[in-house]
């Protein structure tokens, strides 16, 4: 079970109160986690990744295990602690504006 922490506005949009728990089949990567997230919560499509290019939106970051994984390949394996559910995969809004 993968745990995902969403920023406040995306939790509101998805109608979830806390962490999201997802089953991910196959290798646990940014892409597979986000695919599973968007399948479960289709209202989030386009809010984290561009609809067409699938690139991360500029003002969002992906953190896990106290590391910034935003610039990693979307197909790179996520840390084992994320894959095992011990640590969450965090989607966070970059600090920008008021």
């Amino acid at each position, binding site marked *: 079970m993968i745990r995902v922490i969403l920023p406040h506005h995306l939790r509101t949009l998805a*109608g979830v109160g806390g962490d999201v728990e997802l089953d991910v089949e196959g290798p646990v990567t940014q892409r597979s986690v986000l695919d599973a997230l968007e399948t479960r919560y*289709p*209202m989030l*499509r*386009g809010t984290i990744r561009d*609809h*067409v290019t699938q690139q991360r939106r500029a*003002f969002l970051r992906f953190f896990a295990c106290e590391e910034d994984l935003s610039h990693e390949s979307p197909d790179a394996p996520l840390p084992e602690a994320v894959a095992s559910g011990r640590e969450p995969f965090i989607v966070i809004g*970059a600090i920008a*504006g008021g």
Partner: protein
Amino acid sequence: MSQVRVLVGTRKGAFVLTSDGKRDKWDVSGPHFAGWEMYHVKGSPADPNRIYASQTSGWFGQIIQRSDDGGKTWRQPGTPPGEAPAPGPPKAASNKFVYDASAETGKPLTTHQWYDGTQHPWEFKRVWHLEPSLTDADTVYAGVEDAALFRSSDGGENWKELSGLRGHGTGPKWQPGAGGMCLHTVILDPSNAQRMWIAISAAGAFRTDDGGATWKPINRGLYSKYIPNPTAEVGHCVHHIAMNPSRPGVLFMQKHWDVMRSDDGGEQWRKISGNLPTDFGFVIDVHAHEPETIYVVPIKSDGEHFPPDGKLRVYRSRTGGNEWEALTKGLPQRDCYVNVLRDAMAVDSLDKCGIYFGTTGGQVYASADAGDSWAPIVRDLPAVLSVEVQTLP
């Protein structure tokens, strides 16, 4: 007794203001979508309970929201919360605005001029304006940044670009204004379903006579000293256009500078600034029952986006332009330095006609007597981006 519902989009959420026909006591609901920029909220003329809203964020992009009960509850069309999605690829993505590509190359249809004069690909940023069909609640148009027009015919679930607008040849000459290259005005002709007008900053005004398949620039008579050729076919920074539905084709325009009118569907424009203290501004609107009565809010200049002399004044012309009177009763006449943005004025269709506008200072002012006197409905909202009105039976 009639009711009025004022739909307010702000930098930090949407608000719904309701009153009876007297328009002196108001209920305020909101913020809806708290924390998000609500660029535009507009109801369907075909079904007043159907309201569309553009919810945007620099972080999370574009969301389209829809209400089917007059703004009490909302959902993203095609993705109702709480329902498990069907297996297989998604059938709808109400925030998926994808520009048409060239059939020959598969690449973007065209490019536009960037700030440095080079050509730049179209990149979707947000929906500025939603214009529901006059006759079908499930059909709605979206004017977007970078400038293009999209249409949904399934209640906002799926969007298709009307790419004849960008494809007619002048696209490479369009350029962004300070607020971005936005398509902000969409006017539907109640007498001819094939005809509509749109306006873009900074490209100008355009008209289709075939339901959006082909478009022509309609900027003859506009003069813009800030572009190399002041009378060019495109490149003008049109801020807003208004039309009284009873007189299709008579158009009133607030340009960057200059207030203009056209009596022939935009073929030719003439200046009607007359005795205005300044003819820079953003909003313009027309009285619901007197098609020669028009309203603007003069703003000091392109460099100083606030009213001249710190006095918030709506100017009314009862002669279709040129002769203007200042309307000040109930509006602040000292130390007022707010702006009124292009989609932030609207009229109701009661008798007497109600006029409404919102400011960047968070006030929404209403006049129940066609502008003779004003009172704030609310004073302390976030900066107001848009104001629309529904007159309900």
